[in-house]
């Protein structure tokens, strides 16, 4: 028996050795850098272009490989803090803040100067997503502005006039009710056509002049009339007016509310409007007969657009930081930006490319001609979501959504739910700062700034712009003429 076991052990050792030696990682003669990101055909194409671009520019030869198996945020975090992170890391805004807090991201300012991917090269509004505490921890690979895509044919079919480019909540509700009434006459409830697939809660709230954190991001602000009104509107639009689907309706196609399933429902005429960004066109292009237009999300009194920034950072423990910087330089190149223009993967990170003829009027896709210009124009109203250093964004989002959904499920009234949510958020903040003396000192200082802001506002005086750290309020105060940089 022992000989059998020993033979098996030996065979496994030999197999392992063969497998290891046959791997291309071992065989490669050039340095290999791993880029942890979501994999798709656009990304594969971009890596191919990057390698060609390196050769054309005469830069050092190396290879970038995509790693999608570790693209989950928790894997990136744990691998990063354990010293085995990927060389290059794709990050959403929340991740960038979390990874920066751990210190696992390289401060790119010196490399950015050397390679020319400084902040001034890209959209200024995207800065809070990768400029954190004065450090540059990434550079945008993709920019997006959240909009509604309109199925023009469906509006025409039911005789509903297209909404204006900028519209209010009242106009949204009125048009929505008219649409669902016209579109669902005599239909089985299961075949219902909705006006929109969803509406973004943050945009609704911001449109009323309210963010989820205060001006200095020291406190959560959920227990207020605006947030409560947002919940009531959500409830009304989903369960009473039925212009937006409930979770059950959203589950219709794939049993889950994924971007792909919502796009599929949109092209099957189940929604007149789809919440998306320019990247939605990657899927929508397969349906050439779909005449598209885009509209800003409706607002109460303040037009605002939520922007997304997909940035890329460099791991501090990488052995190839210098080489990794070439990829970020590539994001500023014409090759990359024109690829983004052509594939509709995003709004190009370099603003100048969004004014080009190829961007505005792609020859092969005339059905999209209204879309491209407007998605870039919306950058005028764009601000990133808030990210407070005092609470992890994922924790905040979990608390907020749990109580919001509890209110929508009827477990609490909206007032109760938001009072509890605000208390839970602030409790979390208290716990975070009490565990970290440095964070507490920072919090205490910002709390004093907050008091100053509130006092000045109460007295009707201008607030010094530098006191405001919340990106939404920075813009809001400026445009309302409430801050010194107005």
């Amino acid at each position, binding site marked *: 028996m*022992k000989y059998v*076991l020993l033979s098996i052990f030996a065979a496994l050792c030999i197999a392992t050795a063969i497998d290891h030696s046959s791997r291309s990682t071992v065989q490669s003669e050039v340095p290999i850098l791993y880029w942890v990101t979501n994999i798709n055909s656009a990304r594969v194409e971009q890596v191919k272009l990057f390698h060609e671009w390196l050769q054309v520019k005469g830069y050092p030869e190396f290879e970038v490989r995509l790693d999608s198996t570790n693209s989950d*945020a*928790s894997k990136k*975090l*744990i691998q990063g*803090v*354990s*010293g085995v992170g990927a060389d290059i890391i794709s990050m959403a805004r929340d991740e960038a803040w*979390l990874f920066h*807090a*751990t*210190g*696992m991201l390289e401060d790119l300012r010196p490399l950015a100067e050397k390679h020319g991917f400084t902040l001034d090269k890209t959209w200024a509004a995207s800065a809070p997503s990768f400029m954190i505490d004065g450090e540059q921890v990434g550079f945008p690979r993709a920019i997006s502005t959240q909009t509604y895509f309109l199925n023009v044919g469906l509006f025409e079919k039911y005789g509903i006039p297209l909404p204006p480019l900028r519209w209010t909540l009242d106009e949204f509700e009125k048009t929505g009710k008219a649409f669902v009434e016209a579109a669902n006459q005599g239909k089985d*409830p*299961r075949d219902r056509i909705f006006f929109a697939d969803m509406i973004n809660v943050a945009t609704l709230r911001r449109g009323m002049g309210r963010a989820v954190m205060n001006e200095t991001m020291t406190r959560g602000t959920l227990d207020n009339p605006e947030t409560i009104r947002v919940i009531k509107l959500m409830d009304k639009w989903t369960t009473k007016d039925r212009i937006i689907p*409930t*979770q*059950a*309706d*959203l*589950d*219709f196609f794939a*049993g*889950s509310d994924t971007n792909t399933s919502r796009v599929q429902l949109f092209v099957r005429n189940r929604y007149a409007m789809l919440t998306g960004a320019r990247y939605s066109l990657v899927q929508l292009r397969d349906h050439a007969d779909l005449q598209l237009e885009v509209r800003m999300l409706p607002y109460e009194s303040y037009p605002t657009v939520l922007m997304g920034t997909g940035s890329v950072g460099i791991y*501090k*423990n990488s052995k190839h930081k210098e080489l990794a910087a070439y990829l970020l330089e590539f994001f500023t190149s014409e090759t990359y930006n024109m690829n983004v223009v052509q594939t509709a993967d995003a709004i190009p990170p370099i603003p100048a490319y969004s004014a080009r003829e190829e961007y505005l009027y792609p020859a092969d896709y005339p059905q999209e001609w209204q879309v491209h210009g407007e998605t870039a124009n919306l950058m005028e109203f764009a601000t990133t979501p808030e990210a407070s250093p005092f609470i*992890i964004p*994922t*924790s905040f989002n*979990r608390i907020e*959504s*749990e*109580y919001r*959904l*509890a209110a929508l*499920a009827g*477990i609490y009234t909206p007032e109760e739910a938001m009072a509890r949510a605000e208390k*839970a958020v602030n409790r979390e903040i208290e*716990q975070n700062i009490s*565990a*970290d003396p440095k964070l507490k000192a920072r919090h205490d200082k910002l709390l004093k700034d907050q008091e100053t802001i509130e006092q000045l506002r109460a007295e009707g005086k201008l607030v010094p712009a530098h006191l405001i750290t919340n990106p939404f309020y920075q813009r809001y105060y400026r445009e309302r003429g409430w801050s010194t940089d107005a």
Partner: protein
Amino acid sequence: MEHGRMTINRPIIRRLVTGLTFLGPSIAGFLAFTVIPLVLSFVLAFTNWDVRRHNMFCTESIEFIGWDNFERMFTHPAFWQYLSNTLFFMLGIPVAIIGSLVAALLLTKELNGPSALRRIHFIAMGVLLISLAVLLLTGFDFGNMLLLIVLLFGGILLAGLFGKATVYRTMFYAPHFTAGVATFLLWKKMYNPHTGPINAALRPVVSTIQEVSQALPPIFGPILGITAGMIALGIGGFLYRRLGQAWSDGELGKGALLILSVISLLPIVLAWRWMEGSWLAIGFCAGQLVLLGVLVIRRGLQKPFRPVSAGVGFASLVLPLSGAIVGQLIFVGLAMVAIALPAMAATGEMAPPDWLADYYWAKPAIMIMAFWAAVGSNNMILYIAGITNIPQELYEAAEIDGANPWARFWNVTWPQLAPVTFFIVVMSVIHGLQGGFEMARAMTQGGPAGATTTLSYFVFIEGFESGRLGYASAVVWALFAMVMFVTLINFKFGNRNVND
């Protein structure tokens, strides 16, 4: 041994080396992946380790903070919500154990000759045809359903004819060796409110209920509600009768009777809370208290057959008690639905549940899935082994005494299975307290509104999403303490031996 000295000769050394060589990898693995992490996690529970501040890129050192993590945990409202979710899911354990036992009893039935075999298959075929007829009458799509049922059940019956019990044992055990995540995704598809087969089957049934409810006078709802409430009370009555019988027969100690009686009040608390003090709640709670009162008065006046120590009988009756409580709660829930039925039917929008997206349905949906997985699990295999080992003479003796099948079960099978049941209960409780992570991760992400977040998923959120490893370790050790406590209770009062 030579002159008081032990000589270690070469064969002994060789055997020792061989033994250690074989054991070495296992010991090394156990030390590296179990013992050391276990000790480390215990130490971590008393530290402020947060990966945001304590990692290879930060100079800040990890500090011992005493009981702070535990204090924080016990004052964290989310912890209590997730603990109550975990305990709610554990309500399914007695039902699952009973399901495993029933499956094991069925799968160990000897088929006495071809006539009995044929009879069983005829009964199964009859049930199949009646089910099919019901579905057809209530408007289910004929073609798809017929094809599905004929192929599925026909195949199973045919396989049973040739492979006998082995085929069915394999089928029942199938959920256990199917990959967990794949199963969860399958159930997620089945629970799809619009395209899933569960709601597809329920839709015509719900439509029929709606039509019937609309046609009947509104008083029909309360009558149905009262009927369901009476059934719930009937279950309570049966339970108290069984407790009283055990007391009289000297199978139940005073302490055990007291604890079981207190536990039996749980449906009163929950019914009162669910029905918010309505007339039905008053009726049910009063009925249950009266039943308990009858038990106390009747049996209190009666001396037990033989004196027993206080804790005796707890373990053998806690499982039937738990099952009865779950049964009562199901009928209380049905009573609530029945009362609301006329109003729901009047709206004309009655629909099958939105299983995983509805706050109130998400937990039962997960429990149904867990029940399905648990019935055909290792528990069933253990029960099959246990039943097979029961000496046939006991059954023969019982038969000679004139015991009917029910009496044979209660007086022979159930006591003989005590050690197996004890093991299953201990393991199920441990798994129940630790469970729920995979389902929450794969199916609901802990939602909606935290309804399916269990303590194990909470540990994942705190440890790997928020990076608070010290706090997550504290939650893990609190969980361990709970598991330990419940296990000790089980060991103290459990029926570990056949003759207990």
